[in-house]
């Protein structure tokens, strides 16, 4: 096994784990019980979707809006899966397992490797490492969240905003106009629409042909 791939995978796992504490704490602050927060990390297992889900609930949005936001946020995983099919070539039940581990991080580490053996190892190692650390961290955050008082006091709300900015950043070069429009649509409609709906409005903005043409 390539040691460099292993160390990259583990460090990515630890890094996302730290951010998982923030998710756990925000989840319970949004009014979910520890079990629900854990189901999100174990079963949904996609940071962007998870934060979208609890974010809508925390703002007082309807459950159906939370579900829709999380679902739309997860669409990119389909395209990682399409790319990874030829890289890792899972069969039968392995497809079910590979699908669960298909996230931003596992796809990115895999894509960064040069040999096909390392690409495969990068996917599985990172997927497992992130899964383990993310879930442990979520549990810590969810349990501590009840004890440590407000999410704001620890800056965890700002951490979540910064995390989304970090995911958006590499996409800005090609699609900054669209990002600007999505951001404007969300903030401009916030005072007038029920919580969560502005996020869906922003998603609808994506159909407007603007910038990022290839």
């Amino acid at each position, binding site marked *: 096994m390539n040691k460099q791939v292993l160390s990259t995978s583990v460090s990515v796992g630890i*890094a996302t784990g*730290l951010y998982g504490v*923030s998710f756990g704490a925000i989840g319970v602050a949004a*009014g979910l019980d520890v*079990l*629900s927060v854990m189901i*999100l990390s174990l*079963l*949904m297992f996609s940071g962007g979707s998870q934060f979208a*889900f609890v974010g809508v609930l*925390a*703002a*007082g*949005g309807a459950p159906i809006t939370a*579900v829709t936001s*999380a*679902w*739309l946020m*997860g*669409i*990119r*995983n*389909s395209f*990682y*899966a*399409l790319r*990874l*099919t*030829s890289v890792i070539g899972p069969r039968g039940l392995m497809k079910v397992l*590979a*699908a*669960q581990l*298909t996230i931003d991080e596992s796809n990115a580490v895999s894509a960064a490797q040069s040999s096909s053996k390392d690409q495969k190892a990068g996917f599985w190692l990172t997927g497992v490492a992130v899964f383990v650390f993310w879930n442990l961290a979520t549990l810590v955050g969810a349990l501590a969240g009840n004890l440590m008082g407000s999410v704001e006091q620890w*800056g*965890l709300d*700002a*951490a979540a*905003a*910064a*995390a*989304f*900015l*970090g995911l*958006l*950043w590499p*996409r800005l070069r090609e*699609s900054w106009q*669209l*990002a*600007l429009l*999505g*951001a404007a649509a*969300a*903030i401009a409609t*916030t*005072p007038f629409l029920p919580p969560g709906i502005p*996020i869906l409005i922003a998603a609808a903005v*994506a159909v407007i042909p603007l910038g*990022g043409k*290839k």
Partner: protein
Amino acid sequence: MILSVLIASIAVYSWKLLGYLIPERFITDKFRDFAERVTVSLLAAMVMIQGFTVTGEVVVDARLPALLVAALMLWMRAPYILVVIAGAAVAAGLRMLGL
């Protein structure tokens, strides 16, 4: 609420599994392009909602300087995790000072 949690989890998982089940030739460039665009506009919206609203109202507070510091660090190519930690630290610090 737990029912919504389960439905949402299955809905998100279905995207992942779908990618392994459908042959690539069925995916048009147009749809691929749309998926990338939805991701961009959703992420931008989440930055705004998470950064500048509180329960359905627009609020500017310690999260603004936190996001500015995060943007500066991203521009300087700092690792993702440091960006997230810095965002939390700036907001927590400013609030501790009563700002």
